[in-house]
């Protein structure tokens, strides 16, 4: 029998517990949890990447190095609708040139749209996988993603208003740990319900009309808190209700589809512009219509689809009189410049709100 594979998948937001669960239970293989993203990760990634590639490439590459050093022998890399689709190929080449010995499963090579082809990739990871078990685990994983997203949403909406600081964070961290340690679907459900109950019990000092900010932007940077320098936490700490539509639940599992969203924003754009462009424009309009106090748009430097939607966002900003803050991230780790802009944005929307309320 072939030795057991040690599979790893680069860290994306909080979803690695899901990948872990899938690999361990669905594929019956070992999962190497990549170490948390740190400055060292970014440094290694940036050193070995082409200079003009976007920051997520560098971060993921660094994280792959971390995972390989932690003992992984098989890496899985996702496909994507923008340049991301080519990343696995290039990253494999760079890592092989660096002298790492591993196998890369490039999902882009299997993304024909047919489930049969995805199954081929799974077969490569474990040839003796049981289809029934795989399907069941996959369903459980979707449930876990939904739970993580729901808890995260609730966390960022409320954690800025708790009466005793730190309570929300404690529950949230414990929930994420529970998801990582979950061994069956009962653990997942129990962890989720526990977090929900504990959130309910926390006392809030929330004004009737709190400041509400919608965060939109490029898929990876907007979801990964390390890459966006904990933007949502910073906003929440100032006393803002932070909303972010973009997550796996909304964008992938329950995505309404390009056509359905496109119809709702037909006055702003008529064509699809990129992987998350339609969704982000729709989302920005949605926030504007619902009377949010501001929108923050983030992207990594050089992300073409997100640069393209900025003129549309400017139109939305003018039509609905909603301020939009544009932030560009590269592989920097200092947050002084970010803080200046976010603080000023907060001051502006809060002064505006005071005037409107009088």
């Amino acid at each position, binding site marked *: 029998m072939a030795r057991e594979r040690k599979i790893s998948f680069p860290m994306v937001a909080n979803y690695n517990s899901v990948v872990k669960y899938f690999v361990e239970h669905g594929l019956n293989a070992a999962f190497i949890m990549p*170490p948390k993203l*740190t*400055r*060292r*990760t970014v440094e290694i990634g940036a050193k070995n990447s082409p200079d003009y590639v976007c920051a997520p490439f560098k971060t993921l590459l660094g994280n792959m190095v971390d995972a390989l050093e932690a003992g992984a022998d098989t890496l899985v890399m996702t496909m994507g609708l923008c340049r991301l689709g080519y990343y696995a190929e290039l990253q494999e080449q760079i890592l092989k040139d660096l002298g790492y010995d591993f196998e890369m499963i490039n999902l882009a090579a299997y993304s024909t749209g047919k489930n049969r082809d995805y199954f081929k990739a799974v077969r490569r990871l474990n040839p003796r996988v049981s289809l029934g078990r795989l399907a069941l685990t996959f369903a459980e994983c979707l449930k876990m993603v939904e739970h993580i997203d729901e808890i995260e949403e609730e966390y960022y909406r409320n954690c800025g208003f708790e009466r005793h600081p730190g309570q929300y964070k404690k529950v949230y961290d414990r929930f994420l740990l529970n998801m990582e340690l979950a061994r069956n679907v009962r653990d997942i459900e129990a962890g989720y319900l526990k977090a929900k109950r504990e959130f309910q019990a926390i006392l809030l000092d929330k004004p009737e009309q709190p400041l509400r900010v919608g965060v939109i932007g490029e898929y990876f940077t907007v979801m990964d808190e390390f890459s966006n320098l*904990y933007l949502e936490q910073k906003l929440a700490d100032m006393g803002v209700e932070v909303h972010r539509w973009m997550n796996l639940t909304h964008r992938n599992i329950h995505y309404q589809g390009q056509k359905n969203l496109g119809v709702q924003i037909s006055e702003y754009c008529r064509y699809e512009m990129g992987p998350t462009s339609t969704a982000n424009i729709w989302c920005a309009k949605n926030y504007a219509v619902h009377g949010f106090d501001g929108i923050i748009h983030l992207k990594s*430097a050089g992300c073409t689809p997100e640069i393209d939607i*900025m*003129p549309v966002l*400017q139109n939305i*900003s*003018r039509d609905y*009189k909603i*301020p*939009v803050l*544009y932030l*560009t991230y*590269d592989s920097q780790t200092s947050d*002084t410049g970010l*803080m*200046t*802009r976010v*603080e*000023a*944005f907060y*001051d*502006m929307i809060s*002064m*505006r709100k005071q*005037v409107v309320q009088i």
Partner: protein
Amino acid sequence: MKEAYLGIDIGSISTKGVIIDKDNQILASEYIWTEGDPMGAAGKLISALEKQFDKETYQIVATGTTGSARKLVGAMVGATIVKNEITAHAVGTTTLYPEVRTILEIGGQDSKIILVEHGIAVDYAMNTLCAAGTGAFLSSQARRLGVEVEDFGRIALTSKHPTQLAARCTVFAESDLVHKIQMGHTKEDIIAGLCRSVVSNYINNVGKGKKILSPVVFQGGVSKNIGVVEAFRKALGCDIIVDENGHLMGALGIAILAGKANARRTFDFSVEDMAFRTREINCGRCPNNCEIICIYRDDMLIDSWGNRCDKGALKAGIRTGVRTMAKN
């Protein structure tokens, strides 16, 4: 004793300070170069302000700091409010000019635009990543041309045919400029072209997608350059207000904010004689290696920041035994 408020704006190039009374009247003001030493500059600024200030009738009850070194100097002077320069500028200018609709600001390293409606800032933008079209660019080009940057505006106004210069990027603008000099363009034409390129760069980058409505106030260090003011007037087709205290707006704004806020702490002029020192340490408690900045007054740790989690938290007030070099 009447109440007074102190505001300090520590920018990358210059450090500004004002003391105002309850009616926002300026009692003392000072403008000096930062010269890469924000703490030293703040010390000098405070001693200069002390000379102008009437200590018998007024007492400073609240202190605010703003600008890129706000946190550092805020810890040093014991500020009651530490705020970003965008808010400070908006507050300062709207207090003096309640009617203003657009505030253009070009400083040493940054440039920003603030849109105002009914005296409240409603939108702003700030340059990202690149210092093209800021004061630093103008002063480096002045050095290349062998002209004092203070004379730039006067020389620019004498030009009849400003040279076209690539405006997008400092690097391109500079190589374009060298080329034009060697081609034989006159100095005043090139200087006027530089002023124009600063303006078009500003309008295309910072002001992109923003509707610039009159009345327009132009401030920041570069507003002292009449060549740039003239170029703005031509490009926007409206009158540009430049206040004689335009360079003090940030400091004024933060002083006003300090006065409005509830926090009160009597300011002690003796900080100028104390020795302050900073030290950078790498936390090392996890692979992230946060760079933690520690500030010491004499050998007492008064503040620290830069840590991302509690592992790197240091308690203020610890005597570290690290000896500080006495001032001078």
